[in-house]
């Protein structure tokens, strides 16, 4: 298929529909509005349903119902709205239902701002909702990768029966890039024999539920079902990009939009003869811990760059386990890191000034 130039938010919608998503429940919030707007335009054409809910709380609970009823379903929001969705995400994770949730992150806390940010890393990877649960979090850095991962997300959600989150930022949502909708490599997907579509008198009732009032039953549910599949996902679904990790004076770690800026900074450093590596997590959960084992004694330090005051850096520290110092450079509130500042940080680490 030929490449077409699309705006990020609309490309996400197009990818979802290509992946068979026929249901979308959302609530307006900048900077993701073009996504629900696109869905309201396009879903009726494929006999799907777009519904503007009364709130993000209602939207995610509509997703909960639709996912239980067997649909491929999506919702999207931005940071303050995503905070409201956490209740529903916890229920969906607990009841083991598939769905795809998009967060086009903006600055916070509170109403914050409307410019790009990465300050919802904790919320996305630690679970903003209650209880022992996880969900896959994809953080694409280009629109092509975004559409690929949105399509993949529906399969992953169905395969593991869990919510999958796409984390972008105002930049991902608003920028335009050429994209191509490729055929996915097929996954073996389990039959949805657990859905609430009416027994038709032919089977026992299906029950969608996250309540296990007996503590032993709940512990078994969490350990034997949820944790067991989380371990498989950590084994099989980790995605990352690595560049020059084994031979670097400094290894940078960055995801999403920020990783593109870091790549520019790295190119500049290389032009000056420095050896700089990059680890770009594509899945924020499961986090690519193992690739950090490749970092050699030669490396002087790690530099985590984020559009936040430092959230992913916790995972970087866990991954490097104290072997190397971990430094941080970040801008927040919707401010974008400047490549020159990153170059300066890299040089300081390489030169032992830090």
């Amino acid at each position: 298929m030929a490449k077409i130039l699309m705006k990020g938010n609309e490309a996400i919608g197009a990818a979802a529909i290509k992946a068979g998503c026929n249901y979308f429940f959302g609530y307006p919030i900048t900077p993701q509005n073009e996504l629900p707007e696109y869905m309201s335009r396009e879903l009726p054409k494929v006999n799907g349903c777009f519904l503007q809910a009364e709130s993000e709380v209602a939207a995610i609970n509509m997703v909960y119902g639709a996912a239980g009823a067997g649909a491929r379903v999506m919702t999207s929001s931005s940071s303050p709205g995503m905070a409201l969705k956490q209740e529903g995400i916890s229920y969906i994770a607990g009841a083991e239902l598939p769905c795809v949730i998009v967060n086009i992150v903006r600055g916070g806390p509170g109403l914050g701002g409307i410019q790009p940010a990465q300050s919802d890393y904790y919320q996305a990877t630690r679970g903003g909702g209650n209880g022992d649960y996880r969900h896959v979090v994809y953080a694409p850095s280009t629109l092509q990768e975004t559409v690929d991962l949105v399509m993949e997300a529906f399969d992953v959600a169905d395969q593991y029966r869990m919510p999958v989150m796409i984390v972008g930022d105002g930049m991902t949502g608003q920028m335009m890039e050429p994209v191509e909708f490729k055929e996915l490599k097929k996954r073996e997907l389990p039959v949805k024999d657990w859905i609430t579509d009416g027994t038709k008198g032919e089977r026992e009732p299906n029950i969608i539920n996250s309540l296990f009032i007996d503590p032993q039953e709940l512990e078994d549910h969490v350990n034997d079902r949820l944790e067991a599949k989380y371990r498989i996902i950590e084994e099989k679904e980790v995605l990352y990009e690595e560049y020059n990790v084994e031979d670097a004076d400094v290894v940078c770690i960055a995801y999403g939009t920020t990783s593109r800026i870091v790549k520019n900074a790295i190119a500049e450093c290389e032009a000056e003869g420095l050896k700089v590596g990059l680890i770009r997590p594509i899945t924020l959960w499961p986090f690519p811990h193992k690739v950090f084992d490749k970092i050699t004694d030669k490396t002087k330090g790690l530099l985590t760059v984020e559009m936040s005051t430092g959230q992913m850096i916790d995972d970087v520290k866990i991954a490097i386990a104290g072997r190397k110092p971990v430094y941080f450079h970040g801008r927040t509130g919707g401010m974008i890191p400047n490549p020159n500042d990153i170059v300066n940080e890299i040089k300081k680490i390489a030169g032992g000034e830090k």
Partner: protein
Amino acid sequence: MAVVFDRTKGLTSKIFHYCPGCTHGVIHRLVAEVLEELDVLGKAVGVAPVGCSVFAYDYFNCDMHEAAHGRAPAVATGIKRVHPDSVVFTYQGDGDLASIGTAEIIHAAHRGEKITTIFVNNAIYGMTGGQMAPTTLIGQKATTAPYGRDAEHCGMPLKVSEMLSTIDGAKFVERVSVHNASNIRKTKKAIKKAFEIQLKGEGFGIVEILSTCPTNWGMTPLEGLKWLEENMLPYYPLGNFRTPGEVE
């Protein structure tokens, strides 16, 4: 020997966990009988609330979905939009529907969502141990209103049926009670009507059912029924607020 009375096919054989004399059980049976009589058990999907009836998913003999507190109408919306031919109902208490879930119920009604809501108003939070609900009567004591509800402090009890009947999408709104046999019969009729309206695709329907909570009211079951009749009926008048035909 001829069978003169049998458990409705709409209920499973699971024993109710409700307190002795609690009218949640009566209401379950009425809903289940209606589903059986309308022959829709095979296409019914119920949404259970958070409250004493949280285990409704174990009792109704059809597909069930357990919602978060107050969110049943949103969950039901998701189900109904995916399977427009299914018969979707929510079963909710007054804390669930009239407090934490007010936005969800008002907007489900407002969209004219083709679902049926069974709203059990017992003027108290049963499950959490008798705290004040938006529906708690003036002067009624609750664990968080130990001196009795004071309108100056926390407003007048919320009249949900009256409120919803101002919304165009709510095609059927009726308040009934289960404090005696004749009212139980009327309750069943109202429930049937509400489901029939869903089957005809006419819009949103709600049956508000005045119900007892002898445990948290601190009464025997019989005292509870009498208290409902003497105190709840004057403030929450029974009757139909909206039926299709009258709406247009």
